[in-house]
């Protein structure tokens, strides 16, 4: 057991239990906070995998921006403590559990049986955290992936306009 493996196992325990807490918590606010914890642990995994920039954007964009938006909407709607509703389909919950167990067993079986994954991930050396690696990544992003990058910016613009139009309905009605 190297120290890296111990860190990995502890963090994956935290990640899995926070994900379960997110999926099964009664209170939506707790769910959101569990998800923030999950995002932070995944950010630490990115650091172990030698992707510091992704780790930082994970924390700022996911744990920061997206989850603040979620918490804001939960509190705005007062949806944190919805009474458990009668299930429309009573067999839905057991069926969901069976399907989930099937999915996880199947994917783990395929990973072990089919994929030839024998790489061992070592700790990133200091070069991965240098300015040079950031420059290399930016060169790849703005040369090889320039068109997807621009399309992503248009997508974000469309999403912004869409969100504003959707939430602005009453004013538009009042004017008409």
């Amino acid at each position, binding site marked *: 057991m190297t120290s890296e493996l111990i860190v990995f196992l502890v963090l994956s325990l935290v990640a899995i239990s926070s994900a379960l807490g997110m999926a099964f918590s009664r209170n939506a606010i707790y769910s959101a906070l569990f998800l923030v914890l999950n995002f932070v642990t995944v950010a630490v995994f990115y650091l172990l995998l030698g992707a510091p920039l992704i780790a930082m954007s994970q924390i700022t964009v996911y744990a920061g921006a997206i989850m603040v938006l979620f918490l804001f909407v939960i509190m705005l709607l007062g949806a944190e403590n919805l009474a458990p509703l009668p299930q429309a389909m009573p067999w839905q919950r057991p069926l969901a559990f069976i399907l989930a167990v099937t999915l996880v067993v199947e994917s783990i079986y395929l990973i072990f049986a089919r994929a030839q994954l024998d790489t061992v991930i070592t700790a990133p050396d200091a070069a991965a955290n240098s300015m040079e690696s950031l420059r290399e990544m930016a060169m790849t992003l703005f040369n090889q992936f320039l068109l997807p990058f621009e399309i992503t910016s248009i997508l974000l613009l469309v999403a912004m306009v869409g*969100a504003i139009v959707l939430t602005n309905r009453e004013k538009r009605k009042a004017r008409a």
Partner: protein
Amino acid sequence: MIPVDYYIILSAILFTIGALGVLIRRNPLIIFMSIELMLNAANLAFVAFGRSWEITSGKPFYTGQIFVFFVIAVAAAEVAVGLALIVEIFKTKKNINIDEMNSLKG
């Protein structure tokens, strides 16, 4: 020294928990959070495979990380529009029970 399988198995488990959340919860906000969890699991697999290729080939390799960037941007766009829709549905129907969201006309 962590075998890359461990990361992929963790990613599969997180993805399954997200899918389970989508299947069993009735609160659309939590369904949305489960979708974010699934996207996150896919991102973890992307970065793990990228790092594994980097080690195998011995050269710096950034494509996996750049794909994660795109996924994060798409997730942000999706959350903005999705939450706007949920707020709008709440304004019309006064609740957000997923079982009642069966008509497109408000």
